[in-house]
């Protein structure tokens, strides 16, 4: 991790959003969002629909104007620069390919608009088509292509211009599951190969976790948390982030400090030792389903006693619901094989490592 001071000396951010606000009619959809994207970084704007992530992307692209704040690309203030004069590559959810042009003409469009023609253009088009494995499809029209191919054309069309920033607006959501993974990996590979700074908008946590160098979680027009995928996943700042990035077991109760240690007392009176840094008062304890260890040994004494309520096999994993003696219900995710003999109503004990539990003050929920 480089320090903040280092960054400000060595580089200006590739993309910088400074206090961006935007309202549509009576509703403010962005309330002063600030964001820095470092050169070559792949960041995901993650949030539910209506959180303002697409609006933020449109402001970056120059397709919408912010009411307040500044947009800087490579240190240049482009807040009032129209889209055509920004050096950005934009990929839409519906690809937005020109239906009356062939693959090649689609890819050539931006070059032509910038006055790049002839041999130089042909060379760059060839390069882009090769990079995205579109060679042989040059003369096809968009409607003659599969969804995955269309998305690759959209990427080629944007990348052929060698933009400063690549912006992608939910580019995978119109593809079926198998194709989605394929195109996802392709986007990541191309991004790495070119080292292009990328902003990717999605509502899919798995996409964000697998693609991003940094995840920026948005909610109701503001950034809730920003950080490396694992960091955001393991240490969510609030319940919203915890629930939005994967599944979370949430226990309500309060933290009681005793000397140098602290315990979390659930509503049903169970006492769980927690990280000593937790402060007194009403709190929630969050633990991921896969962080819970299930002990099936009859003689086991460690952990919380409970019984299995339901068992669902999901191929590589097994998904269990466990009811604790206090009445709390937990979801547990275990990896197969070796767990196939779990039965409903089986007596078990559950435990987890203290560092896998996140304790948040109740108001953060």
């Amino acid at each position, binding site marked *: 991790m480089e320090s903040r001071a280092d960054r400000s000396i060595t580089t200006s951010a590739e993309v910088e959003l400074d206090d961006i606000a935007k309202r549509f009619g009576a509703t403010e959809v962005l309330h002063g969002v600030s964001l820095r994207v470092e050169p070559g970084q792949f960041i995901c704007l993650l949030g539910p629909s209506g959180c303002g992530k697409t609006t933020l992307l449109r402001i970056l*692209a*120059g*397709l919408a104007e912010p009411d307040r704040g500044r947009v800087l690309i490579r240190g240049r203030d482009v807040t009032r620069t*129209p*889209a*055509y*004069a*920004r050096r*950005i*590559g*934009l990929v*839409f959810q*519906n690809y*937005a*390919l*020109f*239906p*009356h*042009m*062939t693959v090649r003409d689609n890819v050539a*469009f*931006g070059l032509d*608009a*910038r006055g790049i023609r002839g041999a130089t253009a042909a060379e760059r088009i060839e390069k882009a088509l090769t990079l995205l494995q579109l060679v042989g499809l040059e003369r*096809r*029209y*968009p*409607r*003659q292509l599969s969804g995955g191919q269309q998305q690759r054309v959209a990427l080629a*069309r*944007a990348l052929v*211009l060698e933009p400063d920033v690549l912006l992608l607006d939910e580019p995978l959501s119109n593809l079926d599951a198998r194709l989605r993974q394929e195109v996802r990996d392709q986007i990541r590979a191309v991004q790495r190969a070119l080292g292009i700074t990328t902003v990717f908008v999605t509502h899919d946590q798995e996409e964000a976790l697998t693609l991003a160098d940094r995840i920026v979680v948005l909610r109701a027009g503001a950034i809730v948390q920003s950080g490396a995928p694992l960091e955001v996943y393991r240490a969510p700042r609030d319940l919203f982030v915890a629930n939005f990035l994967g599944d979370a077991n949430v226990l309500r109760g309060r933290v009681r400090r005793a000397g140098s240690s602290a315990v979390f007392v659930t509503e049903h009176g169970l006492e769980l030792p927690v990280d000593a840094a937790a402060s007194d008062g009403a709190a929630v304890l969050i633990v991921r389903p896969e962080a819970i260890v299930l002990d099936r040994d009859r003689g086991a004494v460690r952990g919380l006693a409970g019984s299995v309520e339901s068992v669902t096999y999901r191929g590589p994993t097994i998904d269990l619901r466990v009811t604790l003696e206090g009445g709390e219900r937990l979801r547990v995710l275990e990896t197969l094989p070796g767990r196939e003999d779990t039965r409903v109503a089986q007596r078990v004990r559950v435990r987890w490592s203290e560092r896998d539990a996140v304790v948040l003050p109740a108001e953060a929920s």
Partner: protein
Amino acid sequence: MIRAWLLLLPAVVFLGIFFGVPIALVAVTSFIAKGGGLALDQYRRFMLDGFYRSFLTESILVSVVTTAACVVLSFPVAYQLARARSGVRGVFLTLLIAPLMVGDVVRGYGWLVALGDFGVVNQALMWLGVVEKPVRLIFTPTGVVLGLVEVLLPFMVLPLAAAIGGIPAELEEAARSLGARHARVFRKVVLPLSLPGLAAGVVIVFALSMGSFAIPLFLGGVKVNMVGPLIFQQATLTVDGPFAAAVSCVLFATSLLLLIAYAWVGTALRGEPGGR
């Protein structure tokens, strides 16, 4: 499948009786020779007599200019109409269609008053000092074109707006993000994708203009020769049925040719894999 076709029957029967039969009658009448019997006399007279032929050429000229003016004027209107928010679009549409509620006789008279030597337009021009004497507007082709453009504009705007409405706004945004300024976005994206609507508008406006009657009568008088008033004059004043029928058939054939051309262009556009 057959039942669905049966539903078309009433309309087909109606059109057959009230459109097909009269057309056939007119067609037959047009071949009646002076002394009886069938011949191409009427057509020969219309096409070979310079005076009568001028009605056809002048009609075509006025219609071409009218159609061209409608295309140029319609694009911005149709674009705004197609891209407006739905509430605004409603108001817009009402304003566009409202003039159609007033027949073109009323509007023809209105234009006559406005464009006359001492009409509003000339008064204004003289007051502004643009001209010293009144400009001749009525009974000129310019006057007729003015009137026709006003009457026919909605028939160009509506199909064009429908076509533009079918172009996702994202395509324009994509074009802009790729470095295209407005003119290029229009030329490379909006224009080619709205061609089917444009073609439909051209056919409708040209055909309506060729067959127009009230506007040429009011604004052209006896100075502008157009086919519509000629047919009326031959059929009711001169009572030359066969000749009126022949002119009608020429007019009908012109429109039909245009329609065939449109269908052909339409298939060509669709035949190309990118056409929509």
